[in-house]
């Protein structure tokens, strides 16, 4: 029971972005961190996996079934992609947009939301500590609060596959830990396959069950954090040295450094 991405090719015009990219099996209940430099194709990979872009070759399958064969709505029920852009300045409340994410799971044109839907929204809002902001317009929130609301949209849909493009980039230290713990917990409890693009290697090492290193449209290395992050693929990908260390609390710390400095 896993997500499997095989031999993915994608190009914008003539320039290739993904070149025979494969992730191997990403099992349910595991959080995978996708790391890699800017422009290595992480967002394109997410868009292909979510069906927003049609890859020129390769396949994305969940539990053995090809996702390309599903209708957009069916695929969207299984896979939810949270893009990096959470900056929409719109006169909608936190409750509105999370309810919207829930409501769009259903077919049909019913204008009112069912009690079941509002209950699910309420639960997610409480889980993320958004209750004090629930009625505020997202345009008036801080970047971090907006990011939390966006994560609420992802959780309320209870997808099978969760693709998160830098879910913690706008969050303060405490919220980064909270959100990553929430995501990991939801992933395990609900048996979701979660792939999160994360720039902070220590954060990736700390929360991910598996790290995928992406470079120039391919997965350069994949596996358990302590194995992958020590691998020379990481040094080569970022052109840095990497020093790994266990803290006194047992947490894996990653210290990248530039040679000669």
């Amino acid at each position, binding site marked *: 029971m896993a997500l499997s991405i095989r031999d993915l090719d994608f190009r914008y015009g003539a320039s290739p972005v993904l070149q025979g990219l494969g992730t191997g099996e990403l099992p349910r209940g595991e959080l995978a961190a996708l790391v890699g430099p800017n422009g290595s194709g992480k967002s394109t990979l997410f*868009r292909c996996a*979510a069906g*927003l872009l049609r890859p020129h070759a390769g396949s994305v399958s969940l539990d053995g079934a090809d996702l390309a064969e599903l209708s*957009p*709505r*069916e*695929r*969207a*029920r299984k896979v*939810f*992609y*949270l*893009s990096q*852009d959470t900056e*929409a*300045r*719109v*006169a*909608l*409340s936190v*409750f*509105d*947009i999370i*309810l*919207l*994410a829930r*409501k*769009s*799971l259903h077919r049909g*044109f019913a*204008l009112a939301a069912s009690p079941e839907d*509002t*209950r699910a*929204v*309420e639960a997610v*809002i*409480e889980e993320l500590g*958004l*209750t004090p902001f*629930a*009625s505020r*317009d997202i345009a008036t929130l801080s970047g971090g609060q907006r990011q939390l609301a966006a994560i609420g*949209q992802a959780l309320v*849909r209870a997808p099978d596959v969760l693709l998160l493009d830098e879910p913690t980039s706008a969050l303060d230290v405490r919220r980064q830990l909270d959100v990553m713990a929430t995501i990991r917990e939801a992933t395990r409890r609900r048996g979701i396959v979660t792939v999160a693009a994360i720039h902070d290697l220590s954060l990736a090492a700390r929360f991910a069950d598996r790290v995928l290193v992406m470079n120039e449209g391919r997965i350069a290395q994949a596996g358990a954090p302590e194995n992958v992050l020590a691998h020379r693929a990481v040094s080569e990908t970022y052109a840095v040295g990497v020093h790994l260390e266990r803290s006194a609390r047992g947490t894996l710390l990653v210290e990248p450094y530039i040679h000669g400095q």
Partner: protein
Amino acid sequence: MTAALPMPASATAEYRKRNAKRLKLVLLGLVALAVALALDVSIGPGNLPLADVLRTLVDPQSAAPRLSVIVWDLRLPIALMALAVGAMLGLSGAGMQTILANPLADPFTLGVSAAATVGASVAIVFGWSVLPGAGPFIVTANAFVFALGASLVLFFMTKLRGVSAETMILVGIALLFTCNAITALLQYRSNEVQLTQIVFWTLGSLARATWGKVGVAAVLIALALPFFLMRGWALTALRLGDERAESMGVRVDRLRLEILIATSLLAAVSVSFVGGIGFIGLVGPHIARLLVGEDQRFFLPVATIASAVLLSLASSLSKVITPGVIYPIGIITALIGVPFFISLVMSIRSRAV
């Protein structure tokens, strides 16, 4: 005495309360609609007492024939046309603003109205009809076909280029200038009678209202509003960006095309009935956005109602500036609309920084 401690309301309870408030605003809007209509019907040359006018409306049988003719044949079609055209332009503008993610989009700024004027001018100057058998409706038919054509050009041109909301507005502005140039060329070639007709068309006037047109407009609104509302959730999702909407399973391209066709139909019909009336499709939705936010289930009806009320009030205003003279309503809406348009541009710029 019990001190009222603020109850820690649940998010759902607050949401319900907000919805109830928004629903109340819709109902209030309908009341405002009725008041504006009564006001519009009661104003006009002849200085008829308000009570007489209202009695004639409620009970036409008992009214004096002269009164009945003035109210039912002269004033009511115009007053209802103001509401209907306002509603069509408001819904059209609201729809365009939502699918283009641009608060400056409306039939006027995108060149759809200008294209309709070209169609009308072609009919007036050359007598060419695009639709065969248009007969006496040749001017209206041409305006309609050209407006629809402009919307489709807009859609397919932007489709070709692969295309952001900003591009669409730029293409719309290019379209507007092109249409204005063609209309000017036609005016240059026309004789005096034709010139007067074109100018009259360009101004936009409710004096062309008839019961037939009011009926057509009413049917169109009755069909269009549910068509939009059925897509309410998907349209709200679109406000969060194409990618987010697509992640939620919304077929963004199809939705955009459906709404674009519907909005151009609304714009084309209103322009072909009464000529170019600008800015209503900007101001009405803007008021709606301030009142109920952008949940399209509330935004679309309130934008429709607010625009109808606005045009109705503008119609009343057009009759009281100089007693005995009814100014073309397009002039009134432009004079009020332009400063508003500028302030809207400024506020968007300051927000973007």
